[in-house]
């Protein structure tokens, strides 16, 4: 399950960044991949749609809201946690 989530998050980020999944490293930040604020908002929308979850993210205060976007690995981990919480898995 966890590997599936991580794989899907990487695919979503790759599509937004117009990159191959193989080009994305876990330690990359969204900025490293050229994702601007609009692309980040669209990525989070895609994540919410893909997993059926609500992501607490405010573009005015991206560091707040308990959703770590400092790296792709951090985003994947946060999504795993939200899926577990919100689906009761």
């Amino acid at each position, binding site marked *: 399950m966890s590997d599936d989530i991580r794989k899907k998050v990487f695919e979503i980020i790759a599509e937004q960044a117009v990159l191959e999944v193989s080009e994305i490293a876990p330690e990359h930040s969204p900025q490293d991949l050229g994702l*601007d*604020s*609009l692309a980040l*908002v669209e990525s*989070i*929308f895609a994540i919410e749609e893909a997993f059926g979850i*609500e992501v607490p*993210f*405010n*573009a*005015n*205060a991206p560091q*707040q809201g308990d959703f770590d976007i400092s790296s792709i690995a951090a985003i994947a981990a946060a999504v795993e946690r939200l899926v577990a919480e919100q689906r009761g898995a």
Partner: protein
Amino acid sequence: MRRVVITGAGTINPLGHSVSETLAAMRAGRSAIGPLEIRDAGRLSVRIGAQVRDYVAEEHFSRQQLGLYDRFTQFALLAAAEALAQSGLPFPDGRTERAGVVLGTAGGGVGTWDESYRAVYEEGRNRVHPFVVPRLMNNAAAGHVSMRWNLKGPSFSVATACASSNHAMGLAAQMIRAGQAEVMLAGGSEAMLCFGGIKAWEGLRVMSRQACRPFSADRDGMVQGEGAAVFVFEEYEHARTRGAEILAEVAGFAMTSDAADIVMPSREGAARALAGALADAGLAPEQIGYINAHGTGTAANDRTECAAVADVFGAHAGRLMISSTKSMHGHLIGGTGAVELLACIMALREGVIAPTVGYRAPDPECPLDVVPNTAREARVEAVLSNAFAFGGFNAVLALRRA
């Protein structure tokens, strides 16, 4: 050159159903932002807004009229009536072929769209009200104001998102200067506090769920409002000859485009609009005592706006006052510049600067005098009103004491 003055003002917005109620709320620093009371509010993640309260449309309009008037049109008609009453103009009689109306709105009849989509998609009906098109069109409000007051000169609507009202008022002033009209009703109206209207904004992730705190270090986004304000713009000699009371002079206007990003503001584009308005008005930076900020309460706008003001005003940036009344009436989107012009007129006429309420902590990136939390008495000779819209469109008005 022909000069343009303001001889009437009218409004209905979250702070009040008239200019006097609105200015009293601004003086008191009272915020109208609160829990949204709309259909399906429970399905929203953003549940606060600044609504026009205690408003009963049937007290103002007949059933036949309400069949044609979306909420944004109702607001515009009420504001226009108050403004014209103050002006003392004889409309619908008089030389109305030399008078027109320009109103800004970003969304037009959003509530009409929302209800009609519900009917056909959610409820599965195959029929909508026959007047859906004339209700929802962006120029409906301007059209009904023209019809109600027999204004037969140039009239149209302007849609430049959050700068719609400022563009409308600036264009109206230019038309009087150019000799195309003697009188123009100008301002803006917006009514998108319905489920679909708020859902759309939610998606952008720039809305606060707590409060609108412009320039405060802990700000976390904008809060939507609704309402309208309309002004009577009049050629100076025309107003003087008939002995009208002049509220302020529309001294200058400038508009620029960032040509950069559809949502992120540009310091350079904003600065060029500020400098352009000063130049058009023939004002030196040191003559500006107050700026009504765009001040949305988003991280990006407030930081960028303060930097642009610093670029244009230099050392004087630290001496002038700048406040965002959106902290009280919310962001009226296409109607916002019009309601905010009321704060500018109050500053010039009454010497009262409306505050930025909800301010809790200074932000080093917004190091200006934002008139935090409490209104202030100060004599000012000239003011600016900023609007910076999605699309990268900037529109700044300059007003001078009458």
